[in-house]
């Protein structure tokens, strides 16, 4: 089968290896991955900052770029949430509303696609490791895909998951919020880092690189050597060599 891959702007600029890992996992499931070079950002930064016209402009560009009737796989709950649930709102009452609805119905978050569509089975080939998990708010609530992500993680037999005390609490990223309300954002991410530290985990995993940009930045600033990693990259590392 063919599927589009929407890499997201954060992954594109800062975490391309996470993006590639997602592509490899899809290819392993016999998906022919299409990566349109014209793709850019989902539009969320403007959409959440009071600039809907600019968000619409960028959204139209993605809709045009991902024109064919293939599923669109997104390695981020947050961007997937915008593409799937917010685009229809952004275009409500606009001439292209119907077209946008059809586009949005093709959106899948990566772990959702791996479980629901590909029904993947993973074999853990790594050493025992203790990890903790960060649920991005949009993955958790708007997309509700955390069960899929954790189902993948549970397939890895030698991975011990130690959950955060406040897993359902936001890390304080919020896109432009992190620089528009920097003091509140700093307090939130500081608490998130404390929560991570108390788990004693060797790594922090998530489906969302926006949150990981925030969390890894705060961990690094405090000189804490706990790596963060996108779930796709972690899975690829644990199952390397499989087809």
């Amino acid at each position, binding site marked *: 089968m063919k599927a589009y891959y929407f890499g997201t702007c954060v992954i594109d600029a800062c975490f391309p290896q996470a993006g590639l890992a997602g592509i490899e996992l899809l290819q392993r499931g016999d998906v022919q991955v299409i990566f349109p070079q014209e793709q850019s950002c989902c539009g969320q930064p*403007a959409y959440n900052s*009071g600039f809907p016209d600019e968000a619409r402009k960028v959204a139209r560009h993605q809709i045009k770029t991902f024109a064919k009737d293939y599923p669109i796989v997104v390695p981020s709950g947050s961007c997937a949430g915008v593409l799937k649930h917010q685009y229809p709102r952004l275009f409500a009452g606009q001439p292209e509303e119907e077209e946008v609805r059809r586009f949005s119905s093709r959106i899948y978050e990566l772990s959702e696609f791996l479980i629901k569509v590909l029904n993947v089975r993973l074999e853990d080939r790594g050493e025992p490791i203790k990890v903790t998990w960060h649920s991005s*708010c949009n993955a958790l609530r708007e997309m509700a895909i955390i069960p899929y992500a954790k189902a993948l993680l549970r397939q890895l037999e030698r991975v011990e998951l130690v959950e955060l005390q406040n897993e359902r609490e936001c890390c304080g990223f919020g896109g432009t*919020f992190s620089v528009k309300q*920097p003091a509140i954002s700093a307090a939130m991410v500081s608490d998130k880092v404390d929560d991570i530290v108390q788990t004693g985990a060797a790594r922090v995993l998530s489906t969302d690189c926006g949150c990981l940009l925030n969390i890894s930045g705060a961990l690094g600033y405090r000189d804490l050597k706990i790596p963060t990693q996108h779930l796709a990259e972690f899975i690829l590392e644990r199952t390397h060599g499989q087809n």
Partner: protein
Amino acid sequence: MAKTEDVAIFERNVAKALGDGQLRRNLRSAMATMSQRRRTLFADTEAFEQLRTLGQSIRRRALSQLPELLEQLEQRCTANGIQVHWAETAAEANAIVLDILRRHGATRVIKGKSMVSEEMHLNHFLEEQGIEALETDLGEYIIQLDGETPSHIIVPAIHKNKDQIAHLFHERIPDAPYTEVVEELNAIARGELREKFRTGDVGVSGVNFAVAETGTLCLVENEGNGRMCTTAPPVHIALMGLEKVVEKLQDVPPLLRLLTGSATGQPITTYFNMITSPRRSGELDGPHEVHLVILDNGRSGIYADPERRTTLQCIRCGACLNHCPIYTRLGGHAYGHVYPGPIGSILTPQLKGLDEAGVMATASTFCGACEEVCPVKIPFTEILRMLRNEAYARDESEHEVQGHGYRYTTVEALSWKSWALYNTSPALARIGAQMLSKFGQHLPMIGPLKEWTRVRTPPPFAPKTLHELAQQRGLDDDR
């Protein structure tokens, strides 16, 4: 970029709140307890979902016929002997209350908890008129002693712990011994309040639900002070926002369950008062006069816009505050307005105008925790996003929120236009991405990056973008 005044004030408040370690500890422990209790009560998520869908439909049905229901409420109340007054502004409402007090020569008012009275700044107003207004809800009593306003709409003194209250009582209440024993603190307050209940000239209360069908005012409380205020003095004045009306008596039980469960995790409160008339002949107690003041104060403007109207579904349970990662770190005072937290952030800018309170709409990461717990399913994120749009919308405002466009600057508008151009021009984006890869680690630490790097390392721009890596791997480009 020059900061608007609301932003500058909020930043100062935030810095102060975040610097107060005691406040953060008090809030965190209190909020954790309240949300734990709520979770236990609504453990059956499916049943809760059904109940809140019912709650939402009851509130929507009421709002869909708001003018008619208010008219019906007035008729029924009047027929029951309750005198109804309409106030368009807080000043009008204060004048109505003062007029009633003057007619009765009242100098001592005892008050049950009412957020509408806070909105009116009634205590301050009465004090200026030489009238004593005493808060009788324990939390309200505590903060009044300390000259503060509520920091939470349900638990007004939640920012204080037991030890702080022990000191306060000892310092401010004549002859009160110092004690940290909760029962003894309660006894001190009770002793003070009893005499006030006995000698109060007029009782003032809020209203949780007003039933149009029967002309009944419902009052939810835990301490019995509400019943004292509404029955002991010869005159009772009830204050309500005009959105508090519901259609039928049978609408009340589900809303009550949602309210108490969401607010404090209680299946029912200790007291639930239904006030339908003043004392009737032959009855031994109850006030001789009951007045209902119905306040607009900007609500009809919200009502007029179908998208904004959902704001008025609120039943003031405070669950959105208890679950908000921002409220639980700042407390209520930092917001700088009567209604804090998520509900305050959607309500206040609409009541007072964006130019005064627009910054509240930026105090959200859109994490959605408020929407998840809201017992009447208010679409918080949608309303916050609409308010952010309005803050920058000058002539093209879609919702005409007062003060729209107040935050517009050419610089910010231009930067978003450039952002849109960059993200719709693949050639430009390619060059930009390559520049970031090469020079991203050497960007000057100014503007957003300066804020980001206060507590974080800079973003790790990769040597090659995913676009480039995908091309290298020969991935199908669909062209």
